[in-house]
C-alpha cells in the first residue's frame, strides 16, 4: 500500500506544475496589446505622432524622389542597372524590393490613419484635430502612391483608368484598385474634411490649415484643376508666414541655394520635417542617392544630363551652385549639390513650389490673374539671377508666362522628383509629348508596377501594364 501511495503522491505532485495557466500568458514584455497601447486621447495622439515619424522616414526619406527622378528626363541614365535601370527605362516589373517595400510602407501610413479614425471614440478635447490630421496624412500617402503607381489625371478622357486601392478600414480582405477619379476624389475629400477640422496654428511638425491647403493646391494642380490650385496656393502664400529663402547678408553667410535643404535655415518650408540628430534623422535616402561631395559614383548617384546641366548653369544664374561637375580621367558627370550635407531638414511642400503652382495656375486662368503669375515668376527669376535682368515683362502673354514658369519649375525643383509629375501632368493637359526622352505622358511605364503580392493576395487585382514608353 505504501508503494501505491508513493507513486500516487509523486504523480499528483507533478500535476501541480501544469496548473498555472498564467504561465502561458506571456506577451512580449516591451510590446503592448492594443488595449494597453491605445486607450485614451493621449495614446491616440502618440499613435498619430508615430504616423508622422513614419511619414518622414518611410514616405520622405528620399526613395520616392529618387524613383521619380530616374523616371524623369533630367538625369543621365547611363550606367544605372538593376532596380534603378528599371525605373530609368520606365519598365518596372512585379518584383523589386526597392519599390515594393516602399509601397507597403506608404500603405502603412494609410493603415495607421485608418486606425486613428476608427478609434476616435477615445478622443475628447482634440477629437476634430486628431481626425483632421489623420485625414491629412492619409491623403498625403495616397497622393504620393497615386503619383507613382498610376497614370495621371487626364490620361484617359473619362478618368476611368485605374488609380490605387482605397482601403478605409484596418482590414485584410482583398481589394482591387479604384479609378483615378475615385482615387483623387478620396484624396480631396479627406483634405476638404481635414481643412475644417485641423487647427489654424498647429503644433510644430503637425498639419494645420496652411498645410492642408498647400497639399490641396498640389493635388488640384496635379489634376490640372487650376482654379482650386490657385485658390489654395494663394491663401497659403498670402498668410505671409513663408518667405522665399535669401542669401545671408554677411559675406561668409549662406547662399539661398544652400538653404532649402539645410538645418533650420530655410524660411520656405510649409510642411516638412526637422532634422533632429539621433531622434529623427530625415533625408537619409536623399543623401545616399544625390550627394556629390561624398562617395559619388556615376552608377549609383544622381547625375544630371548635359542638357539639364546647360539649362541650369546659364550665365548669372545662382542656381548653378546646385551642380558640381565631376571630371575623372576625362569623363565628366553632373551630380547636384542640393543634398551635400550630413544633416538637413526635409521640406515636403515649400514656398517655391507653391509660388510656381500659383503662377502656372494663374497663367492658365488668365485674365487678371496673369499679373499674379508674372509677379510670382519674376520673384523666382529675381532671386535666381540676383536681380531683375532676366525678369519677364509685365506684358508677357499667357503662353510666354507658362513657358517661363514651367522652365523655372524645372530649374528650381531639380533633384526633387518633380519633373516626372510635370511630364505626366502637362502631357495630360496638352496632349503633347513633354518628355525629352520622347515618351508619351500616358505610356504605361509612366506608372510603376504594383508588387506581385497585390495579385497573389487577391486574384481579382488589376496590375498595371508594363513598359511601352521607349
Amino acid at each position, binding site marked *: 500500500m505504501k508503494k501505491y501511495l508513493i507513486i500516487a503522491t*509523486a504523480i499528483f505532485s507533478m500535476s501541480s506544475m*501544469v496548473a498555472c495557466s498564467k504561465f502561458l500568458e506571456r506577451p512580449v514584455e516591451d*510590446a503592448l*496589446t492594443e488595449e494597453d497601447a*491605445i486607450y485614451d486621447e493621449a495614446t491616440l495622439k502618440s499613435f498619430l505622432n508615430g504616423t508622422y515619424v513614419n511619414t518622414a522616414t518611410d514616405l520622405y526619406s528620399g526613395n520616392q524622389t529618387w524613383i521619380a527622378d530616374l523616371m524623369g528626363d533630367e538625369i543621365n541614365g547611363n550606367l544605372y542597372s538593376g532596380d534603378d535601370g528599371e525605373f530609368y*527605362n520606365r*519598365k518596372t516589373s512585379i518584383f523589386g524590393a526597392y519599390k515594393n517595400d516602399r509601397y507597403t510602407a506608404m500603405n502603412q501610413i494609410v493603415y495607421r490613419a485608418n486606425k486613428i479614425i476608427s478609434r476616435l471614440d477615445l478622443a475628447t478635447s482634440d477629437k476634430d484635430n486628431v481626425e483632421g490630421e489623420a485625414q491629412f496624412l492619409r491623403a498625403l500617402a495616397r497622393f504620393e502612391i497615386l503619383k507613382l503607381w498610376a497614370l495621371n489625371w487626364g490620361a484617359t478622357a473619362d478618368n476611368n483608368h485605374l488609380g490605387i486601392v482605397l482601403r478605409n478600414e484596418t482590414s485584410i480582405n482583398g481589394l482591387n484598385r479604384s479609378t483615378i477619379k475615385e482615387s483623387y476624389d478620396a484624396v480631396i475629400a479627406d483634405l476638404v474634411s481635414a481643412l475644417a477640422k485641423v487647427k489654424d496654428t498647429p503644433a*510644430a511638425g503637425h498639419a494645420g490649415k496652411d498645410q492642408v491647403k498647400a497639399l490641396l493646391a498640389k493635388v488640384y494642380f496635379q489634376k490640372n484643376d487650376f482654379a482650386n490650385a490657385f485658390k489654395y496656393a494663394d491663401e497659403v502664400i498670402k498668410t505671409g508666414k513663408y518667405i522665399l529663402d535669401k542669401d545671408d547678408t554677411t559675406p561668409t553667410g549662406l547662399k539661398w541655394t544652400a538653404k532649402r535643404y539645410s538645418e533650420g535655415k530655410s524660411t520656405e518650408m510649409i510642411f516638412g520635417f526637422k532634422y533632429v540628430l539621433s531622434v529623427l534623422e530625415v533625408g537619409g535616402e536623399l543623401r545616399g542617392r544625390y550627394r556629390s561631395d561624398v562617395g559619388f559614383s556615376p552608377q549609383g548617384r544622381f547625375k544630371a544630363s548635359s542638357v539639364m546641366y546647360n539649362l541650369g548653369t546659364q550665365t548669372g544664374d545662382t542656381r548653378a551652385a546646385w551642380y558640381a561637375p565631376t571630371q575623372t580621367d576625362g569623363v565628366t558627370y553632373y551630380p547636384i549639390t542640393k543634398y551635400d550635407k550630413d544633416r538637413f531638414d526635409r521640406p515636403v511642400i515649400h514656398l517655391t513650389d507653391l509660388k510656381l503652382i500659383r503662377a502656372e495656375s494663374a497663367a492658365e486662368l488668365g485674365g487678371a490673374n496673369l499679373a499674379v503669375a508674372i509677379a510670382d515668376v519674376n520673384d523666382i527669376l529675381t532671386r535666381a539671377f540676383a536681380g531683375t535682368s532676366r525678369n519677364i515683362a509685365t506684358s508677357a502673354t499667357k503662353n510666354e508666362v507658362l513657358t517661363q514658369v514651367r522652365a523655372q519649375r524645372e530649374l528650381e525643383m531639380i533633384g526633387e522628383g518633380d519633373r516626372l509629375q510635370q511630364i505626366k501632368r502637362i502631357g495630360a493637359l496638352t496632349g503633347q509629348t513633354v518628355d525629352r526622352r520622347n515618351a508619351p505622358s500616358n505610356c504605361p511605364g509612366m506608372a510603376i508596377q504594383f508588387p506581385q503580392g497585390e495579385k497573389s493576395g487577391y486574384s481579382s487585382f488589376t496590375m498595371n501594364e508594363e513598359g511601352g514608353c521607349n
Partner: protein
Amino acid sequence: MKIKNKILLYMLPMLLLAVNSLIAQTVSSVTGKVTDAKNGNPIEGVSVTVKGTTTGTSTDVSGNYNIKISSNNAVLVFSFVGYSDQEVPANKPSIDIKLSSSEVTGLNDVVVIGYGTQRKKDVTGSIAKVTGEQITTIAAPSFEASLQGKAPGVQVTQGSGLAGSGSVIRIRGIGSISAAGDPLYVIDGIPIYQDNFQQGNSGGMNLNPLAAINPNDIESIEILKDAGATGIYGSRGANGVILVTTKRGKVGKLSVNYNNKLGAVTYANRPDFLSNREYLAIRQEAYTNDGHSGYPDLNGGISWSKAMNTNTNWWALLTRVGMINEHSLGVNFGNKLVRSYIGAVYSDNESYLQNNSYTRAGLRANLDFNFSPKFKVLLNGAYNRGINKRVPAAWAGGLGDAMSTALPYYPVYNDDGTYFTGGSNPVRRLNETKWRNYDDRVLAGLTLEYKPIKNFTIRAQGSLDYFNTMDYQYESAEWLQRTDVPGIAKANPYWGTNWQANVTAQYDFNVTENSRMSVMVGTEAQESVVKGYNSDIYAYTDKQFYENKSLYKDSLAWFKTQPPNKSNFKEIEKDNWTFNSIFARINYNIASKYIFQLQARYDGSSKFGPNNKHGFFPSASAAWVISEEKFLKNSDLINLLKFRASYGIVGNANIPSGEYYYKYYTGSTNYQGEPTLYPSNIGNPDLKWETLKNFDLALEFGLFKNRITGEVAYYNKNTIDQLLNAGIQPNTGFGTMWRNLNGGKILNEGVELSLNLKVIDKKDFSWTVGGNISKNYNEVKSIGDLDADALGGGTNDTRIIVGYPVGTNFVSRYYGVDPVDGLPIWYDAQGKLTKTFSLDNRVPVGKVIPDYVGGVNTALRYKQFELSALFTYVIGGNLYDGSAKRQAGIITDWNIRRDLLDRWQNPGDDAKFPRTTLQTGTYPGLSSEWQYNSTMFLYDASFMRLRELTLRYNIPSGCLKRVGLRNASIFVTGMNLLTFTKYIGGDPEIARDFENAQDRNMSPNVTYLTPPQQKSVMGGINITF
C-alpha cells in the same frame, strides 16, 4: 487540463495493477561484483534477474549485487546497455561477472530517447545515433555540419565557407512554410535557443547559435526521426529532434585525454573571373553589339586607358590560407561517491577569407554524485565563448564584391594614395571596418534522481541555457568619409535566458513472467526570454568597443540616461515564450520479441492564440523482433530481424512569439518631443501549431554473424495547418501576418537504406564498408486558394506550388540563342517559342530538394594503422545560380565569371548564352537584368565529395607504458579534398544566407555570391595518460 487529468486517471490503475506481480518468495542469496571485461572497472546499474522469474536487482556504484534465489537450479541473467547479456547458473554463493561490450550490431547499446534511455533493440521509433568521436574528426565550422552523410534521412547542407557558418538540416524532408523547418535541438535535456534570425542576415550570413557548442564535449547525438521517437516532444517534434548528450564521468582512475589539431584551410571550389582587359573587351563587344562605336562609359568614373592598365585580383586580395589551431582536454575520474568529467577546449579556426575566424574557448564540468543507492545528483555546467571575427560576404560585400561589383579595372588606391571610392572596394572595407561577434553561452543542469521504492524512479531536472551575444562593429573616419569624427564604434548586444524544468516518474514492472512494462509520466515547463536594446550603442572614437570596454560601458550608461525627448533608448524584450506540458510513455515488452509503445504529450504554449492555446499529440509504435522467434533463433544466416512501425501526430511551433495579438511599441524616437506609438503586426487569436501526421515502417537486420547489418525504412508524413506569414495584400500596410494555412497539405514520403559490411575482421587487419542512401519525395498537395507567387523563398525565385515540391524553382524556360541575331529564345507558358521575355511565362522547372542524399564510409585497419574515408553525395535536385543573371548577356557593373563566356558573337554562332549588351531593352520584354531568371542558370545539383579522409597511427601500448601513457595516436585528416560536380560556377554545396525561416525552408541550393566551402588538411595527436 481535462485531458491531462484523464491521462493521470487512466494511468494510475494500470500502475496499481502492475505492481501486484512483484510478490515473490526467496530462500537464499548470491552476491558478487560485475566489472567491465575490457578495463576491469565496476559497472553500476547492471540488471541482475533470476531467469524465468520476476526476481531481480541491480548493481550498486561499486558493481556489487546481492540477489535472493529460491532454487539452486536458478540461472542469473546479467544485462546492461552497451554490453552483451550473460547467463550464469546460480550454483555458488559468490559469482563475479565480467561483461563484454556488445557486438557490432550494437543492439545492447544504450540509445538516448526523450526523457530517458532505451536499449537499441527495444527501441520502437526511428533513431539514428552518431557518436562524439564521429563528429570531431574534421574541423567543421559547427558541430552539426559533421553529421553530413552519417545518418540516413538526415540531409545536412553546410552554409558556406565562412567561419562559424551554420548548416541547414532537414530530417526526412520539409513540410513547413513560414515556421522554421529545423529540428529541435535538445542538449542534456534542455531544448536550446536556436534562432538563426536574431540579427537577420546581416553581413550575408545568418547567425549560428550552435557554433559556440564544443564538439569535444559531445558523447553522442541521437537523431529522432519518426513520431514513435519524436512524439514525446509533442508540438515541437514535427521536424525531428536532435538529442545531444555530453560526456559524463566513468568509474576509474584519473585519466587525462589531450588532443590537438593543427592545419591549413583554403577553398574547396572557386569561381574564376575575368581580368581587366578581358572584361573591357566584353564591355566593348556589348557596346558594339548595341550599335555604337567608340568606347562605352565605364563604371567608377574611370577612363578607358586607365582601366586597360589596372588589373586588380580582388579574390587574391581577400583570401588567404587560413590556419587551424585546436586543443582540447578531457579529465575523467570516478569512484563510489562521485564521477566527474572535466573538459576544456581552445580552438582558433581561420577561414580562407582574410580577417575571418572563429575562436572557441570552453570549459565543462559534469559531476555525478551517488549519495546512496536511492539518491543520485547529476550536475553539469558548461561555459563556451565563441568569437567570430566577421567579414561581410555574398550580397553584403567583401568576397561577394570580389565576385561581382569590384571590377578588375578598379584600383585599390587612387594615384594620390587615397582609397578608390568610385565603385566597390572591398579592400577598403576590409581595412577600414571591423566586425566581431562575441557569443558567450552557459549550459547548466541539475538532475535529482530518487528511487523511493524498487523500480520506481523520480527524476527532477532543471536546466539553464544562458547566452549573451555582442555584435561589435567599427567604421573608421575614412570609411564614413567624415572629417568631424575619428570613427564610430557600434555595439548591438542581445542576451537571453532559456530555462526548463521537468519532473518524470518511471515505474518498471513485470506484467507476466516474460513481459515487462515501463510507465513514465512527466511534466515540463520552459521559458525563453531574449532581450536587447532598441537601437545600437555607439560612440565616435578611434577604437573598437572590444578594445575599449570602459568606453562601451560609458556609452551604454549615457544612452540609458538620455531624456526621452532626446533618445528613447531602452532595453527591450525581443522574444519571450513559454511551454507547459504533461507527457507520458508506456512501453510494453513481451519477451524482447514484441514491443509496444504509446506516447502522448499535452502542450500549452504562449505562442498560440487564446482560441488554440493547447494541443494534444499522441503516437503509437511497435516492434517485432522476428529473429527472437523460434524459427530464426538459431539461424546462422539471420542474426537479427526486427520489424518496426509507428504512427503519430506531432507539431511545429517554431515561430516568433507574440504573433497572435496586435502588438504595439512605444517609439525609440519621439516626434517633436512627444511620445510615439507604432503597430508591428496584424494579430490572429486563432493562431496554432502546424500538424504532422507521421507514419513509419522499418526493417532492421543482421546477417552472417552480423557481418552485414543495416536497416530499410519507409515513411509517410503529411503536414497540415501550415504556419504562414505571407499571402496578404501589401496595401494592407503589412503584406504578412501569421496564420494557419486553411486546407494546406504537404506530403513527404521516402525510403532510407543503411548498410554496414565487415569485409575483413582479423586481429591485425580489418576492413569495413558502410553507407546510407535516402530518397525523399516531397509534394505540395494543397495551398488553399493561394497562387504560385504568394509563397516565395525570399529573392530566390523558389515557390510553393501545388503538385511540386517545397522550394520549386519558378522561372522562365530558356530555349537557346537565335544563331541569326544572338537574341535569347524562350518558351512561353504554353511551351511555344518566343523571343519576348515575360515573367508571365514562369513555370515550375526545378526543385531544391534532391532525389537522394547519403554517405559512403570505409575504414581500413592494419595493425596500428587506420585509414578511413567518408564520401557524401547528393543525387538529383537543382542548383540555381542566382547571381549569374548579372554576369551573362547584360553587361552591367559586375565582373563576369569565365564559365559564362560561351556567348553569341557572330551570325551562325551556336552559343549557350545570348549576345552581350549594355541595355536590357535589347532582349525584348526584359525589364532589368534582375528579372533575367531562367533555366539558363539552372543546374543539376548532384555532387559527391570526399568529406573526410583520415590516416591514424595508434602508438603501441608497449611504447606508451614506458612514458606513462595509456593511449596515443597521431593522425592527419583532410576535409572536402575532392568534389565531383557538374556545376562549374563554384561550390555545389550551398545554403546561402536567408531572409527568414520561410526562405531557409525553400531556398537551399540557391547560390548568390556564396563563399565556397572550406577545404582543409590538418594533423594532430590524441593522448591519454
